[in-house]
């Protein structure tokens, strides 16, 4: 009898504690979505079939494939796989190809008629301009999502390699020079 009472008491106490914790320490939203969103490149290009990076993060959290992001490429796939503890698949080429060079939109200004269609399409407000006035792309804000190219009625937008330091050549592993008097040159 005592044992039963003791167990009953314990279960009651734990129940209260757990119930309290559930209310007090409740986590709003799904933290995994935030973590996945932080790994996505935020180009907001929609190549994955979702209207932006966060919706794709939500879709991944609810079980969608993680290899639909061409701008992020293999590194993004790898880090998401790492986060979720799954095997990293290769990029699903159906959604686009991974590019080594980061592109940004460029408006051929003499041909711009000031229709504002690209401005409406730009997900990050990187295009400056007004109706019947010339538009231009603010390079540092452009994510290279490509969404402004199609709406342009005069085809005056093209994607060119970014010149703001995104494509600066980096040191590669390894390609060394002579060390010491031994005159060794590593290839």
């Amino acid at each position, binding site marked *: 009898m005592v044992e039963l009472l003791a167990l009953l008491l314990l279960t009651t106490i734990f129940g209260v504690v757990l119930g309290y914790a559930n209310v007090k320490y409740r986590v709003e939203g799904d933290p995994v979505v935030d973590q996945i*969103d932080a790994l*996505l*490149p*935020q*180009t*907001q290009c929609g190549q994955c079939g979702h209207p*932006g*990076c966060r919706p794709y993060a939500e879709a991944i959290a609810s079980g969608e494939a993680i290899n639909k992001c061409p701008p992020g490429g293999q590194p993004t796939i790898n880090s998401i796989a790492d986060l979720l503890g799954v095997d990293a698949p290769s990029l699903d080429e159906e959604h686009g190809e991974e590019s080594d060079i980061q592109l940004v939109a460029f408006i051929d200004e003499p041909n711009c008629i000031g229709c504002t269609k690209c401005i409406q399409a730009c*997900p*990050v*407000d*990187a295009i400056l301009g007004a109706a019947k006035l010339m538009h231009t792309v603010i390079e540092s*804000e452009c*994510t290279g999502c490509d969404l402004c190219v199609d709406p342009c009625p005069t085809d005056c937008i093209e994607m060119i390699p970014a010149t703001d*330091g*995104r494509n*600066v*050549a*980096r*040191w*590669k*592993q*390894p*390609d*060394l*020079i*002579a*060390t*010491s*008097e031994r*005159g*060794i*040159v*590593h*290839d």
Partner: protein
Amino acid sequence: MIKVHTIPGGIHPETHKSMSNGSAAERIPTPDRLWIPVSAGLKYESEPIVNVGDSVKRFTQLTQPKHAFAVASHSPISGTVAAIEMRSVVAMPERQVLMIAIDNDGNNESERRAPMALDELSGAQILDRISRSGIQGQGGAGFSTQIKIAASKQVTHLIVNGVECEPYITADDRLMRDYSDDIMLGIQCIAKAMQLTQITLGTEDNKPQAFEAMQNAAAAANINMQWGVVPTKYPSGSEKQLIQLLTGQEVANGKLPADLGILMLNVGTLAAIGRAVVHDEPVTERLVTITGEACERPGNYWVPLGTPIDALQTFAKDGAKAQWIQGGPMMGVRVTDTTAPITQVTNCLLIQPAVKSTSEMPCIRCSACYEACPMQLLPQQLLWHAKSNNEQKLKAHNLFDCIECGACDYVCPSDIPLVQYYRAAKDELRAAESDRVRSEHARNRFEQRQARLERIEQEKIAKREARKKAAEAKKAAKQVDSDTTTSDKPKAGLLAAAMAKAETSKAPALSAEKLTKQVSNLEAQLIHQQQLLEEAGDDEKRAKIDARIKNTRIKIDQAKAKLASIDDQEQPNA
């Protein structure tokens, strides 16, 4: 002489310095065309302020800094601006930067300078002259000297770095021997502008002649200096290592020498400062050690900045087969494009015979690299994590504290090019960091745009709702109006008026008195009409009067019927 402390790690390679330090510095013939990089620091941008076709003189300013850390460039020769185009730099053919080509006209004209004695210059004037002379650190890193000085406000101690610990290089050695007066001028400029109380020269014990020359020059210039001679060991000339050797203090992780009250400048930088301040001459040339096992005439040469390495090909014994390295054997980079120009950081050009490289072998965990590391890092751990690009681990092992001295490479029995892995890993980490910043920025902009679109949509809905409500309220108000006054709505008003009239016209018919009066009136009318009928002559008038009589009769009958019905209703009551 001050007491010298010790540093951990370090190596003792053959110095090979006697190859090039035997004779005084010479000048090379000025090449026909120089290529001056617009952004001297590569990373920090400047913009050209000359156009193609402009004629320039020596010391004409060519570029204007756009970034605070950028420095201006000046023309080393007189001539014409021949081109401004993208060209590759020494170590990376892929990395192209904007360069200005100057064609030498051979006239050797200079812009007029404004030399001033040091006594006549104020501290602010000295700093101004330094900042507009485009001086970069000449020791190798190439950081803007102006910024280094500006960041050293609380500094009281100047350490003059004349260690030059890397094998083969003797440019600073020769500079101290032959140009100690310029160095002393530089020291005096900095001491005056920054009100320093302590000046120390650090040099290695393998440069006794340079040390003596400096002591003599200091005595002649009446400068009170401390003298620190460190034992020959690589990399004693690195900034943090030399501070530790001379003061016993370590520059903590994430701190600068300025936090210890110390400013360190290379002797080359100080000589450039001396010339810039007193002679008003911007940096347009530097002393370069051209040496190596495959070098024809090893020695030190004054080379105009922007000289293409191609113009120095005569120094190579066996031109085609030689391997060119910019910098020393430890920290230098292989020259991948010989059209690339000499810059302020080119302290040495090493020409080595091309040797078939030994390939990298696996790490055997011997820990020789750990013992050699002057920064007390764990090179083999860093290697594993660099190979797998493990960002967290690399940061935890303080990759960014690596000074890339190459001591670990030198001792590695497996010939692993460790520093190259670290350089690549550092670049990867920096790129990842800037990608993160960029994507965070893009996320914010995207979210703010979404929020703005949402807000505009909400505002539209709110406006529509407001209009709908306003319309309903107006309608309701009109309804109330029409209930009280009939004039507003003509149709409904008329109808109501007619109904009301009908009501009122019915009511008297119901009264018996009025009905009897009506009947008697109608009967009188009937008699009158009958009289008229008799009097009437033609048939037309008769028909009309007949119709009237009939009408009157019907009315009399109706009135009588009503009267009868009233009587019927009244009778039961009576």
